[in-house]
């Protein structure tokens, strides 16, 4: 079949910029594909999407080499309007995508413009809304919708135009795991039932690997890898060097392969596959008569130890857990693992944060939090999780004094937030917001980092000196204008201005959203070091893998209340709690839970790639 989009040796740079955003890219998309594009930030993913949707060369201008053919026509030769009848695109910032204030009008806009006969419009609107599953939202005001609903409206509005290709730029960046999955489900049904080709830029590897039929990995404006999810994710090490994460279960199967327990090749892409793989592996090697399928495992036993591959894998898996963990589970050691980091809590220390029966209701009604009780001690790393709208952000605003409790008391570093000014609290508690652009307001990086200190009453010279030390430590360009930096670097500037304060409490609101894997790890490592130095950390985060790696205590919120609080991995392992809070535990915990039931109780309580791999190896080798 002829490709619907053919990109042939395309290079592009924005305006006068000398750096190439796309560098000799060749790629073709066939009708019916579900293509995922992934890569570190600045790799050219959005630029590639713009080239496919015709925004390049029609909206963004710059020298363009090579050719982009959409449905056989060169995008330079036809207008953007013509291209967009074939390729519908959903932009990154959903608020800017919307042109109307009511869902119905949003749906009508494109249909009216493209001159769809008025007799067909009603049918098309209903079809699109039903496909996406939001027929009940037709009369709603867009401003009152949740992030996930807005995303669906945007998709439905494009879908009503019946494009043959749908290009989406990080549609799930602002969504919780449940809504992200729903968006992918919607895309899958559009792809399978309507035959619409889907091209999606996405950072969530676990979702991509499950839903995409092909994946292209970008790096520095080029396509570094391309193939089916299995092909791409079997290159774990290469992906890591590019700065792209692999799903945790994929890491497990790759590590097993590297240790020679299974044959290298098709890696597992989801928990079910991994569970089956390990079940078969363990069953095959059990003392009972071996089935034919054990040929691979037999060979594995012979070579498992002492191969260079195994060593590399161990080092590998260890490094990727994202932690300078103090213990490496040696092969043969199996069983309950320790908490991800030993909290630096001193016995008898008084809590930095104390919430006592805190209730808060927004003046206009809407979301509220009820009866929150929480104490956080110096050096503790607390993860605050739950669905969108569960009250996590409200809880953090109550802690940093942006909101004052309706009843109950909030104490931060001994200050009652109801009587203390927010600016006073700010000297003890620093917040890193989801969007760094909201907090950046100075002309140079150095001034920006020093700003918080100056506000706290440190004299200008000392402040700049301390800021310089921290900013240099982060490798930031001191004299640059912060807004001229990349998104990831702006987040680092914001982080540096939190670190320099040496606060008693750090509050993080989705610190990893919009960052690629490597930036995410840098941010999290920095925060961990702050916790080690004695800062208390409260982190709101949707990425359960990150929470599992870094937080030793978990607070689960649901419907404005704290549903549970306790050691992270105990709560993740609690299936009924996860269900109640509409959450999914990290892949490794889910896998270990399943294996504990089906294979051996020794898997119970494991939460790291390395531990599961070692445990499996142990079972295979020694029964």
């Amino acid at each position, binding site marked *: 079949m002829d490709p619907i989009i053919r990109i042939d040796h395309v290079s592009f740079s924005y305006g006068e910029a000398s750096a190439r955003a796309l560098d000799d890219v060749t790629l073709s998309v066939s009708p019916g594909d579900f293509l995922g594009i992934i890569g570190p930030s600045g790799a050219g993913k959005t630029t590639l999407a713009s080239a496919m949707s015709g925004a390049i060369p029609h909206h963004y201008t710059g020298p363009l080499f090579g050719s982009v053919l959409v449905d056989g026509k060169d995008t330079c030769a036809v207008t953007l309007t013509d291209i967009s009848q074939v390729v519908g695109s959903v932009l990154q910032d959903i608020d800017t995508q919307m042109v*109307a204030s009511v869902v119905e009008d949003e749906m009508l*806009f494109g249909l009216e413009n493209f001159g769809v006969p008025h007799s067909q419009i009603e049918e098309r609107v209903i079809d699109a809304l039903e496909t996406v599953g939001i027929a009940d939202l037709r009369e709603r005001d867009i401003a009152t919708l949740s992030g996930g609903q807005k995303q669906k409206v945007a998709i439905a509005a494009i879908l009503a135009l019946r494009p043959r290709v749908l290009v989406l730029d990080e549609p799930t960046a602002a969504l919780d795991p449940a809504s992200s999955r729903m968006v992918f489900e919607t895309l899958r049904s559009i792809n399978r039932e309507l035959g619409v080709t889907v091209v999606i830029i996405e950072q969530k590897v676990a979702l991509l690997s499950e839903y995409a039929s092909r994946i292209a990995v970008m790096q520095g404006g080029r396509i570094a890898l391309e193939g089916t999810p299995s092909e791409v994710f079997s290159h774990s090490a290469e992906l890591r060097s590019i700065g792209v994460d692999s799903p945790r279960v994929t890491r497990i199967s790759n590590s097993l392969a590297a240790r020679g327990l299974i044959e290298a090749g098709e890696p597992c892409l989801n928990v079910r596959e991994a569970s089956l793989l390990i079940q078969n592996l363990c069953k095959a090697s059990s003392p009972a008569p071996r089935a034919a399928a054990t040929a691979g495992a037999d060979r594995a036993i012979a070579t498992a130890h002492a191969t260079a591959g195994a060593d590399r894998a161990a080092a590998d898996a260890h490094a990727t857990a994202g932690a300078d963990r103090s213990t490496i589970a040696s092969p043969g050691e199996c069983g309950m693992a320790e908490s991800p980091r030993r909290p630096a809590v001193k016995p008898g220390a008084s809590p930095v944060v104390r919430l006592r029966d805190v209730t808060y209701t927004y003046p206009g009604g809407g979301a509220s939090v009820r009866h929150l009780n929480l104490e956080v001690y110096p050096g503790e790393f607390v993860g605050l999780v739950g669905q969108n709208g569960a009250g996590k952000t409200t809880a953090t605003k109550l802690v940093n004094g*942006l909101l004052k409790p309706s009843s109950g008391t909030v104490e931060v570093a001994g200050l009652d937030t109801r009587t203390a000014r927010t600016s006073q609290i700010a000297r003890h508690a620093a917040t890193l917001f989801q969007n760094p652009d909201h907090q950046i307001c100075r002309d140079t990086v150095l001034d920006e980092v020093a700003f918080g200190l100056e506000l706290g009453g440190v004299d200008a010279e000392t402040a700049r000196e301390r800021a310089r030390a921290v900013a240099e430590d982060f490798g930031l360009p001191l004299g640059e204008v912060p807004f001229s930096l990349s998104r990831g670097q702006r987040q680092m500037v914001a982080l540096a201005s939190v670190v320099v304060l040496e606060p008693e409490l750090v509050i993080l609101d989705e610190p990893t959203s919009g960052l690629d894997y490597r930036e995410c790890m840098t941010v999290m490592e920095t925060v961990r070091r702050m916790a080690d130095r004695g800062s208390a950390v409260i982190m709101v985060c949707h990425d359960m893998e990150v929470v599992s790696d870094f937080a030793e205590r978990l607070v689960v919120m649901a419907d404005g209340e704290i549903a549970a609080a306790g050691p992270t991995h105990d709560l993740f392992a609690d299936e009924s709690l996860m269900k109640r809070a509409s959450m999914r535990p990290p892949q490794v915990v889910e896998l270990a839970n399943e294996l504990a039931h089906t294979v051996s109780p020794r898997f119970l309580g494991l939460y790291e790639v390395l531990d599961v791999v070692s445990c499996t190896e142990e079972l295979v080798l020694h029964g």
Partner: protein
Amino acid sequence: MVNVIDYVPGTTLLHRLNPVTKIALAVALIASSLTADSPIVLVSLLALTLAASAYAHVMRQVRSFLKLLIPLSIIMFVMQAIFVRSGTPVFLSITNEGLMLGLMVCLRLLCLALPLIPALVTTKLTDLANACVEVLHVPYQYAFTFTTALRFVPVFSQEMNAIMEAQTARGVEYDTPNPLKKLRLMLPLCIPLLISSVGKTDATALAAEQRGFYLRTRASAYKRYPLAGRDIAALALCVGLIVLGIAY
């Protein structure tokens, strides 16, 4: 404050009128109150506006707007009463003419500001824009610019809130009791706001173009906005109002 002009759903006559007619009514009320010289006429115009709002169940929006307007009109009244010197003194230096003028100024302020509120809150912005395109032959580009600008108001105010919160959490003293200091602290925030708004408008332009913005003609709109009998009646009322204003 922004929510004052948010659409309030309903099925009253006022809701069902053609958006253009509603605006015409509001404009007629305003024009009439500008030309009228009698406080009785002004009071009746005001009463008509309030009655229409009450009928359309939008008094809540009108009230929240009045909360801003009434202190302002009282100040105007007091100023006129104190500073107008002509006429016979009634109390201390306050003259009857001063009182009269003050009354007129304060009534006129209310009459000028209020009529647009019920007209706007009973109309969806897209309906207003589409009706202007269809009935008044306003070029669609202008109508789109207008609705987009209004639609962005809450988006930007959210953005501004987020920025203020982030800065407050950093320790900028927006909670200072000194309003001058607060103003000085707010100025630097214009930069992040400006940067994000330029980005957003550019993205919106792209999104609109990718959905065929340039193909749109006057006949594109799916919904039609014909002038019905009730609209003709309302337009006659407009003429009546203006005549009333000029006559008295």
